[in-house]
């Protein structure tokens, strides 16, 4: 016959409290295997984390073993922090989850010591504890994944930003030399960088040079068109330069309408036009006859 739930929960909490030091010590021993990563985490830090976890677990388990309950909020926060820091430090998902799973053996030992003589009670306690720890372990993994995705996303952003430099050619004239293949994500970052730069530098003309872009397909062409349209809405003109014959062919072949967009074969042609549009004109300083080179 099962002990009443209230009694059962109080027992779980008191088991942890009574055997705290032993559980802690055994837990740390359990973690000293392959997943310890002592290169990434100091012993003192780990001990502090374990202590904090155990204390919070003892408090929460007094009210039940439902990991989603409000009483477990502090414990979940602790796990979220640990997952987050481990994701950033470079722990694997397994190494992170083992923080929770390696407490199973010491807790079960403690339960067995307390209820060894009453198998049905022992079984119930062990089952409740397993359910709880599995749930917490999965929560840890979820939190880890979230952090990891955030890290990856930021790294991607950094990489994209580095590879899309916007150059100021002259007062009010920007150039964006694109190199390499353009995928959807990259083109969007490119677009945003250029538009931001237009505002920051007060540039009326932006030259997008695609000499270094091997192929232009419909998707890329559409993104370029969107960039040009967006710049226009802001009050700046775009000129697309570096359009090679093959790309010109592709564009016509794909039926892309570039009627509204000014294109030039070379960056220098584009620059000349940009200066004109920005209201500048060139005058050669030396009017004397120059020697032939």
């Amino acid at each position: 016959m099962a002990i009443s739930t209230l009694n059962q929960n109080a027992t779980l909490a008191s088991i942890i409290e009574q055997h705290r030091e032993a559980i802690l010590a055994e837990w740390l021993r359990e973690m000293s295997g392959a997943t310890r990563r002592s290169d990434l985490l100091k012993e003192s830090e780990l001990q502090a984390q374990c202590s904090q976890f155990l204390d919070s677990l003892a408090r929460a388990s007094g009210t039940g073993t439902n990991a989603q309950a409000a009483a477990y909020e502090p414990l979940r926060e602790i796990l979220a922090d640990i997952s987050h820091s481990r994701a950033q430090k470079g722990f694997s998902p397994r190494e992170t989850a083992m923080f929770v799973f390696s407490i199973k053996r010491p807790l079960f030992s403690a339960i067995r010591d307390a209820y060894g003589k009453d198998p049905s009670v022992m079984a119930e306690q062990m089952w409740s504890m397993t359910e709880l720890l599995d749930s917490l372990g999965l929560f840890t993994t979820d939190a880890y994944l979230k952090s990891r995705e955030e890290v990856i996303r930021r790294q991607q952003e950094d990489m994209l930003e580095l590879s899309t430099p916007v150059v100021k050619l002259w007062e009010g004239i920007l150039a964006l030399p694109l190199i390499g293949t353009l995928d959807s994500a990259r083109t969007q970052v490119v677009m945003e960088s250029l538009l931001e730069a237009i505002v920051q530098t007060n540039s009326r003309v932006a030259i997008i040079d695609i000499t270094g872009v091997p192929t232009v397909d419909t998707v890329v062409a559409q993104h370029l068109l969107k960039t040009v349209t967006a710049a226009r809405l802001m009050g700046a003109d775009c000129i697309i330069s570096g359009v090679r014959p093959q790309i010109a062919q592709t564009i016509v072949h794909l039926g892309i309408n570039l009627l509204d967009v000014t294109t030039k074969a070379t960056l220098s042609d584009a620059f000349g036009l940009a200066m004109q549009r920005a209201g500048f004109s060139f005058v050669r300083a030396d009017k004397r006859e120059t020697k032939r080179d």
Partner: protein
Amino acid sequence: MERIPILRMGEYLLVTIQVDMHDRLAMTLQDDLTNRISETGAKGVLIDISSLEIVDSFIGRMLGNIASMSRVLDADTVVVGMRPAVAITLVELGMSLTGVRTALNVDAGMDLLRNSLDARKDALYGSRIQ
């Protein structure tokens, strides 16, 4: 009823939109501007949207309408200061506001209006700039 203030600067009208407008306020602005252009004989309208964080299809259409109506009343319209995020979103939404002239900021916008007005006057009085 709240209204968006319209300032007069010689032959030009200046509007700065700084609040997140509800639809009726936008319609009121449209009406007020048209009336003012008519009353003052203004030749140009500058609409500063540099404070707007959102321009949806309704506001977009309002800007387009203002430009069209002003043209009928012989005034140019320039919209200035659109933010990058707003521009990107409008394009995605499918609005390119082809009838609306734009400039980066108030200074550029006023230059545009003045140049445009000069050009129209020159055409009117028959002189040509080589």
